[in-house]
């Protein structure tokens, strides 16, 4: 079965709160892994302003998941995402095999994203802080 590179951006309802969001992300991760997906990157963009209200919310938590999986596995993952109430929106995209891993995005019109802090302002003399990146270890 072909194993393909995918990338899914998920918008999560802000009422979940920090803890609830973390929990949900873990659930999504497990869901993907149960389907045989190998997660290569997990980006937490934090709560960001939406371009327009979705489900009467002006902001949402954004999580980006990069992984390899079979097309069947993706279908199953998406089916389950659809069933999760706090997931407002998601979009999966197939990535080219030779495409670089998704870059950490700066947030436009949101508060500073957790997980990207180590890039710009902090970089001066703050070398030991690479652990701020929220990427998955060792996967």
């Amino acid at each position, binding site marked *: 079965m072909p194993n393909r590179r995918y990338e899914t951006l998920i*918008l999560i309802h802000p009422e979940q709160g920090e803890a609830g969001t973390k929990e949900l992300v873990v659930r999504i991760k497990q869901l993907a892994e149960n389907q045989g997906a190998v997660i290569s990157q997990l980006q937490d963009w934090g709560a960001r302003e939406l371009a*327009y209200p*979705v489900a009467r919310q002006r902001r949402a938590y954004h999580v980006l998941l990069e992984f390899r999986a079979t097309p069947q596995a993706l279908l199953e993952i998406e089916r389950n995402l659809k069933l999760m109430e706090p997931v407002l*929106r998601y*979009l999966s*995209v197939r990535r080219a095999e030779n495409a670089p891993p998704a870059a950490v995005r700066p947030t436009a019109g949101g508060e500073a994203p957790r997980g990207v802090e180590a890039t710009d302002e902090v970089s001066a003399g703050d070398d030991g802080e690479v652990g701020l990146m929220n990427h998955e270890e060792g996967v």
Partner: protein
Amino acid sequence: MPRPERGAPRPPRRRGMGRRKVCRFCADKGMLIDHKDGRMLGSFLTERGRIIPARVTGTCARHQRHLTNAIKQARTLALVPFQTVYPQ
């Protein structure tokens, strides 16, 4: 009225002044079209959120195609507006 010779190359006609526009994505290979980059996509939208035609931005056909796709994907993810005037 005398017609120009058949097959004669038409003189390049450029209406208006100003310099030729160059596709930003061709000029800068590092600039990638990404549906997750709302800020970049936003620079190809009008105030109201409409996609600016390639004839205005100078984007080449190929990149404009990728760009419109990316913008439409970004719209479903609420990274970029469908329109900016919403009934409230």
